[in-house]
């Protein structure tokens, strides 16, 4: 399979209090189309930096990032990237439907059919006219996901999207995300610090260590593509979780 995104020896350093710090160091990985790739690691390992690099909000200090065989900035310019930020960051003055149609307005797309399809899709039917302050945390995050999907980007970047939600809602949204991906076939790069979450949703997991951010392992998750909550208590699931724990443990002194 041809990779969609390729990181080649990518480093990113930055200045903090006039000291040069290495955020991520010589990162190499590939993102394959129509897969869910998780980037897993402790806080401060540069997970979010990687997403920002894919969005071309940041530029690598060294190395290069390719979209197919073009520079990564091509992907953003062509509107191939959707972003789900850590917090839902909805506009408080817009209703659910208006929040979701924001990207269409910016791209000057008149046809709003996709908005209502997605509202159905993420289970917000009946809440079209609600304002963000009338929604629960989980619902807000669904709106945020719908907003990222509304212009059908090829790549969906998710930055710890469920981190601020409670465990029960998180597990349900994990499953919904998988179902959405099964139908829409997006390529998803999912950043998280939750091991179970990463194992549950991913086809592949990249495990990172902190300071400087380095990849310490790549794990193929061979659980069945059709997932249900039962998988969480299966032997195979625990096996992968254990494998990651060992990997992370080795890198902590």
């Amino acid at each position, binding site marked *: 399979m041809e990779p969609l995104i390729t990181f080649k020896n990518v480093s990113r350093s930055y200045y903090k209090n006039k000291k040069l710090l290495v955020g991520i160091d010589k990162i190499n990985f590939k993102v394959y189309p129509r897969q869910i790739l998780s980037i897993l690691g402790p806080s401060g390992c540069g997970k979010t930096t990687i997403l920002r690099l894919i*969005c071309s909000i940041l530029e690598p200090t060294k190395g290069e990032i390719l979209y197919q065989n073009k520079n990564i900035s091509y992907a953003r310019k062509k509107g191939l990237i959707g972003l789900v930020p850590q917090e839902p960051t909805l506009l408080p003055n817009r209703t659910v439907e208006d929040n979701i149609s924001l990207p269409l307005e*910016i791209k000057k797309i008149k046809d709003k059919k996709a908005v209502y399809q997605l509202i159905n899709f993420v289970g917000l039917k009946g809440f079209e006219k609600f304002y963000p302050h*009338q929604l629960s945390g989980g619902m807000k995050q669904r709106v945020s996901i719908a907003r990222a999907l509304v212009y059908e980007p090829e790549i969906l970047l998710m930055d710890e999207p469920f981190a601020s939600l409670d465990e029960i809602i998180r597990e349900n949204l994990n499953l919904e995300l998988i179902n959405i991906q099964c139908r829409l076939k997006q390529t998803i790069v999912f950043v998280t610090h939750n091991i179970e979450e990463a194992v549950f949703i991913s086809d592949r997991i990249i495990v990172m260590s902190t300071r400087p951010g380095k990849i310490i392992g790549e794990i193929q998750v061979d659980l069945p593509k059709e997932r249900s909550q039962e998988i969480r208590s299966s032997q195979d699931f625990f096996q992968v979780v254990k494998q990651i724990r060992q990997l992370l443990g080795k890198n902590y002194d």
Partner: protein
Amino acid sequence: MTKKIILSILIFFVLLIVWQIVEDQINVQRLEKDQTALEAFIPTPLTILKSFGNDWQNIVRELSHTLRKAGLGFAIGVVFAVLIASIFIFIPFIRNLIFPLAFAINSFPIIGFAPAIVLIFGQGSFISIVFISALICYFPTLISMDTAFRETDKNLLELMEVLNANKWQTLFKVRLPLAMPYLFLSMKLAIPAAIIGATIGEWLGARNGIGQLITIALYQLKPGLLYASLISITIVSSLSIIILLIIQNLLFPWKRGANNEKR
């Protein structure tokens, strides 16, 4: 809630009655000794009410003159503040150049410069009074809009960047809507300031306006009219704030709800 309101209205009236009785007593004693009674300087509530009765047409007419000037000044000040704050976003270089100066000017008592402004634009002229009002509204609004724009949610700005939004789209769809609570807060502070500014401008010699009426009342020793004018300014200022609140709630129903949710 309504109990509290009734109670405070009751206390207000009790105070008025006490004022009336106490001053009546003092005035009776004074009148025995001397013809220049205290009433010449502090009117009783009844005198004020009587002045309202006699002069309400004057008061309303002059007030409407003042409000026209204050309102225009307010509008100019606020519109310019929003425009300049937006320009700061587009061209940060200009912000670096101008903002420290604006911040410094904001700490000046602009009212104190009213005579200088009157000197430039002409004593009592329409423009000078509009200008004073505009200036008073301009700097605080500029500073609060600048703060609002700079505190726009970074995640949303990043999202707009990923969507390839241009600066205009970011301004109109994200920055301005998110700045609205700040704008209304500063407008609520600016509108009484604009009215006071206009009044003071008129003190310095104007052909009309409530400020001129106050000067006349002062020099003709009509404390009833003086107090009536001051009270009418207070009422109009409060009303304008209430109108702004109503507009805010009509335009931004989400603001009310968001407040309830947070606190």
